[in-house]
């Protein structure tokens, strides 16, 4: 009895050590990194003449505008909010006049309200802005909620919710996502190179405020300079007993939340559960850096660094732009196009959304704008599945896309449930590796919607 108890205790202690090397993950694929913009300083775009701010900039309930046509707004001023739990308020990134409360059709077909603001170019800061007072977890939750922060890795989950877990979950580990495993994207990398102190300060602050035992910053091995820099700062600040930088493998998708938790802590998030159920809080590396800046200045999330790249753009670079800047303005700032763009992606090439127009504003969780030329956007027609099993070997969640596609065509709800399609995170490994170019991610999305609707 005693030995088993002490064994258990020992195991628990070991579970909380800082890892020296990453733990094994399942599946994944190797993709050309194409981080062309890694070594160029981010550039701030001149204040755009007009911004269109979407009311849906996060997963959850849409916001409602609290300004009306003709109102004057300032930088950092709250312009839209919602009472809903799953929500992040929206602030203006420019100072100027609200010219319209309009609508826009999102890439998924839904119509959403927008606030159009004509900028006065003066960028007057909102007088209400003051640094928040944060001494405990509840205050941190309130402050992050007020800041409008959403997960900056791409999914746009309101960060305040991630920080709001019940004590029964026994959360002990803060995992910082610096994997940035998508090809092209270097926005997080630039944050690491330009504001490494903020990243470490934000990580320390969140860890200590939430009373977590350790923090693990996972960064893919293709960013040695960032790993070295952050590691140095941790040592300088003598935080290395609670905090570490973990060099991850370079296979995609190491930045997927569940894969990252496995690589950093060897824990698996139970199917259908959240990271807190595996004792972890996962924050994007730019998100923690933002938290450090917010606590210092009180300026809410009003601008975003975006990697602009792809074969069609003249000068690929990282652009810092106010939320709501039009994509066409950003393209112009990057020297325009050297060939006509055939496909424009919001996000990275593996999980990004293809846009139907350049007349579309950026939103908070955008981290990439990829302009693909004719050749790069090649849309090859799918051929017959040859059951090679590459999709099965590539799936980080251990699913079988090859069989799921057939069940989708039959609309077999029970069968799809048995194959646990809801575990799919749409990372795209199956579609990437399919020699027959089957639209497997699309099948998986349909599978999930069939299971959700029950028919």
């Amino acid at each position: 009895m005693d030995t088993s108890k002490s064994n258990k205790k020992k195991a628990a202690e070991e579970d909380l050590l800082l890892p020296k090397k990453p733990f094994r993950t399942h599946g994944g694929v190797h993709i050309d990194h194409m981080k062309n913009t890694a070594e160029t300083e981010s550039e701030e775009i001149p204040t755009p003449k007009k911004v269109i701010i979407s009311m849906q900039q996060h997963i959850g309930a849409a916001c409602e505008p609290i300004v009306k046509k003709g109102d004057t707004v300032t930088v950092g001023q709250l312009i839209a909010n919602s009472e809903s739990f799953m929500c992040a308020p929206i602030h203006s990134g420019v100072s100027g006049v609200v010219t319209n409360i309009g609508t826009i059709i999102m890439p998924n077909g839904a119509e959403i309200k927008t606030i159009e603001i004509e900028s006065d170019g003066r960028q007057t800061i909102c007088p209400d802005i003051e640094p928040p007072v944060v001494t405990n977890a509840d205050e941190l939750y309130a402050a992050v909620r007020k800041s409008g922060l959403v997960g900056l890795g791409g999914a746009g989950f309101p960060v305040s919710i991630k920080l709001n877990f019940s004590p029964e979950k026994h959360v002990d580990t803060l995992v910082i996502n610096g994997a940035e495993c998508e090809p092209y994207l270097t926005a997080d990398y630039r944050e690491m190179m330009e504001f490494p102190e903020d990243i470490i300060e934000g990580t320390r602050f969140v860890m200590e405020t939430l009373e977590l035992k350790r923090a693990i910053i996972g960064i893919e091995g293709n960013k040695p300079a960032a790993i070295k820099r952050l590691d140095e700062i941790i040592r300088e600040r003598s935080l290395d007993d609670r905090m570490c930088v973990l060099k991850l493998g370079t296979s995609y998708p190491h930045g997927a939340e569940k894969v990252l938790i496995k690589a950093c802590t060897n824990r698996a998030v139970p199917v259908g559960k959240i990271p807190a159920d595996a004792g972890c809080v996962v924050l994007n590396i730019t998100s923690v850096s933002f938290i450090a800046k917010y606590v210092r200045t009180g300026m809410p999330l009003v601008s975003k660094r975006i990697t602009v790249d792809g074969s069609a753009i003249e000068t690929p670079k990282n652009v810092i732009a106010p939320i709501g800047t039009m994509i066409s303005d950003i393209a112009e700032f990057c020297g325009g196009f050297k060939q006509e763009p055939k496909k424009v992606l919001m996000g990275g090439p593996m999980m990004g959304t293809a846009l139907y127009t350049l007349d579309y504003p950026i939103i908070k969780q955008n981290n990439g704008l990829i302009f693909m030329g004719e050749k790069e956007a090649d849309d090859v027609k799918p051929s017959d599945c040859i059951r090679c099993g590459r999709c099965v070997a590539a799936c980080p969640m251990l699913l079988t896309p090859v069989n799921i596609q057939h069940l989708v065509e039959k609309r077999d709800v029970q069968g799809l449930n048995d194959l646990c399609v809801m575990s799919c995170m749409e990372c795209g490994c199956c579609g990437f590796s399919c020699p027959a170019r089957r639209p497997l991610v699309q099948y998986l999305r349909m599978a999930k919607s069939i299971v959700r609707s029950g028919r």
Partner: protein
Amino acid sequence: MENNTPNTPQMLSVSSSPHRHSGENTAYIMQDVLIALVPAALMSVVYFGWRAAMLIVLCTATCVLTEYVCRRVMKRHQTISDFSAAVTGVLLAFNLPPTLNPVFAVLGSVFAIAVVKQMFGGIGMNFVNPALAARIFLLISFPSQMSSWSLPFFYLSGNASTDVVSTATPLAQMASGSVTTPMIDLFIGLHGGCLGETCALALLIGGMYLLLRKVITPHIPLAFIGTVAVIALIAGQNPITHVLSGGVMLGAIFMATDYTTCPVNKTGRVVYGIGCGILTMTIRLFGSLPEGVSYSIVLMNILTPHIETLTQSSPFGSEVQRSGK
């Protein structure tokens, strides 16, 4: 909207993610399989002469032509450019005795493509390996022609007529207890047998190529060959002779690994490979036939969907024990 570039109607293409691709396609994979078959094909021509070359070309051409005609008749998109019919043709030729009358080879090729492959929906839809099904069809229909073997280099003996020197395969010899073929002859293929199955060395080279090119995974060949060796050991026979003779090498590397008819998951592939080995040895040790690789693979082909269901991996995170609090 005034900043819109004038006179350029932007027609952007939209599609589901991912927007990048590995660049692989079915034709590349089939080409790799064909390349991997080249060493064994060359050795078959060395050992069995022009007849071997003729059978390989004939089967391949007939298979491709049959596929073309079938797709035309069925009004489906053309699939001959994916090279899968060519692979079936070469593999079928590899499974024929060198002296076989070409008419039977043509018959087998048409059966493989028209009946086994296209009638079930074409590539990816057949439930058994087309080349093996055609071999079994020929074996049952024309047993004597399909089991008359000739010695390597028979074409050099001057006895150039169809009346060739006939021999028995090493397995038949072993079953009757007459002679044992030296190990080195088995390895380099100096013995009677089907066109492509005799030279284990050439097949291994092809297999290594497929593994390096990641066309196949090692699970099926290792499980298949390992099981054959273990059962031979238990039965008190020479495991190396069993592995090197008959169709085990050809079957384990090229036939059992056919994507369409083998399980897609690793565990399933191991189970399937072991099943092939057990059935092969059961037929060899207890059956009335000296050889059982084709039957064992075809039987396991039929079991593939069930193996897949039973070995289905549970998704990541479905059996979680957290060690610490």
